[in-house]
């Protein structure tokens, strides 16, 4: 493995060559600060048709990026949602034009704590303003203008992507004909916040983090960041799924080693996931993005509560939850359905029965993918029909 400094240097060079929109319009953030002239990195798949009615916007999750499918040119790995998006897939890129932008605060080319602060000419680090889900979404709206899309056929996203989507629909009620929030919540629960805090504390407890100044030295607090990722990974699996996948199986050994090496497969798995993450993600970005998730509370924004947030919605919703997801539970998702119902919105809901936990939306879950496809295809027919009339 090359040194991390070298790796980031190489990543930065590669990041020069990805699609970016320079947003010149100032964006006043929820925290009160304003950002302007900032980059928003994005990727598109498929072709926008002449009527511009086949566009699907995907919002990515905490550790995702704009490279939804195909090959991610930065990591040289498959896109994070290759199971659902691509030619002939549930979200068929032969038919639909798929757009995804890297969130602000992220580290795949959009403005984030690793960027240079124009005031100091040094990387932002902790001088980066604290951002919210709403800030992320408002930054992405400019992209639709840039691409000339007045109304999306559909917008979708899982986990934090689903939260962005709920925010998007509440802030821009006319921008999407249909929406599929997956495995998400309209506000972060105490447990959600606690798990995020665990991840942040792991990063901040690493001496290499150095109050966020590690960027100047071209290093990463990799031990802390790896632990943060391990916390995440535990929360993405279900108890049963984990037991079935790993049980008490040992990692390439016949018996206990009587040491603190990774004896168990589950330990080895977590370590692998943790340290692989360090190579592609920025520690400060984890701090900023998890904070944005924790601050997310749609009903707080709309004083009348969640029902108020969805008032006058014309968007047609499909909410999907997974039975074994304990991070964003079926109940969390149903609360969204109840609010949409109460506001009179057009809403469908399906709970997919699976042992795979929160991660299910990224996996090859046939029932889930079938539902996704059925909804999008039927919405496309409706959307075109409505436009014709």
């Amino acid at each position, binding site marked *: 493995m090359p040194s991390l400094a070298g790796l980031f240097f190489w990543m930065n060079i590669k990041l020069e060559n990805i699609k970016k929109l320079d947003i010149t319009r100032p964006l006043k953030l929820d925290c009160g600060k304003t950002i302007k002239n900032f980059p928003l990195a994005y990727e598109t798949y498929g072709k926008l048709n002449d009527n511009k009615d086949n566009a699907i916007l995907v919002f990515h999750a905490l550790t995702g990026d704009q490279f939804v499918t195909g090959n991610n040119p930065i990591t040289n790995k498959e896109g994070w949602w290759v199971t659902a998006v691509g030619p002939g897939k549930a979200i068929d890129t032969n038919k639909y034009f798929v757009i995804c932008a890297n969130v602000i605060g992220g580290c795949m080319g959009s403005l984030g704590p690793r960027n240079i602060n124009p005031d100091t000419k040094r990387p932002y680090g902790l001088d980066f303003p604290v951002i919210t889900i709403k800030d992320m979404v408002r930054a992405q709206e400019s992209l639709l203008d840039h691409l000339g899309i007045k109304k999306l056929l559909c917008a979708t996203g899982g986990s934090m992507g689903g939260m962005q989507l709920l925010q998007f629909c509440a802030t821009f009620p006319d921008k999407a004909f249909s929406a599929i929030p997956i495995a998400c919540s309209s506000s972060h629960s105490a447990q959600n916040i606690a798990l995020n805090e665990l991840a942040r504390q792991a990063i901040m407890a690493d001496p290499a983090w150095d109050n966020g100044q590690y960027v100047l030295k071209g290093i990463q607090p990799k031990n802390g960041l790896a632990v943060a990722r391990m916390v995440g990974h535990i929360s993405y699996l279900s108890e049963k799924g984990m037991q079935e996948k790993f049980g008490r199986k040992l990692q390439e050994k016949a018996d206990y080693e009587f040491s603190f090496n990774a004896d168990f497969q589950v330990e080895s798995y977590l370590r692998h996931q943790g340290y692989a993450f360090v190579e592609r993600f920025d520690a400060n970005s984890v701090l900023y993005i998890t904070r944005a998730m924790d601050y997310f509370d749609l009903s707080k924004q709309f004083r009348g509560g969640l029902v108020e947030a969805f008032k006058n919605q014309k968007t047609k919703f499909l909410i999907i939850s997974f039975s074994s997801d304990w991070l964003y539970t079926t109940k969390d998702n149903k609360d969204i359905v109840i609010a949409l119902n*109460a506001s009179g919105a057009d*809403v*469908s809901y*399906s*709970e997919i029965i699976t042992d795979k936990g929160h991660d299910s939306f990224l996996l090859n879950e046939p029932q889930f993918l079938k*539902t996704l496809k*059925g909804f999008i295809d039927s919405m496309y*027919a409706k959307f075109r029909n409505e436009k014709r009339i």
Partner: protein
Amino acid sequence: MQNLEMKKEFKVIADLLPKNTRVLDVGCGDGSLMNLLKKEKNVEVRGLELNQENVQECIHKGLPVIQGNAETELHQFPDKSFDYVVLSQTLQAFYEPEKVLRNLLRIGKSVVISIPNFGFWKVRTKLLFFGKMPVTKTLPNTWYNTPNLHMCTIKDLFNFCDEKNINIKKVVGVNENKTSMINKSNLEIKNLFSKVGIFLIG
């Protein structure tokens, strides 16, 4: 039960409902009734359905459907949020049919309920002459695997509404392809010759 008789029942329900209304179909199955209501009456439909495959089928058809159990999840719909709530042939399958019925009346301005009539003459004679729980086309299950916990007759539901002060607006009896209006004066005879009873109440 499927096929012709189901179609007939749905046709009767569709005829009962005015155009351009908001309708919730509780236990909407694969969405056949919702589709019919949409096409023939330009009704704004919503469905509630327990079975995952049926939910998927509705979604494929572009029909809004919520996966859930009517016994426990009707609370999510606000008071009088629909003009009509339809419950086709499932009242008898609930643990607490009265509670469900109360909820339907809360959600809808009016409620349409259809029931397989346990007072139909074939059902009566099967029990009378063979001494066995009736198995008919409308009631295809045997006693040990039937989902029907609270079988009732048209007369039973009629009397129930009377006792509970639930306003009966219309009752239609269905037998094969024939339909007839039911009222207090012809209740006894219609209770004997209708396979299915359809009540408009509320």
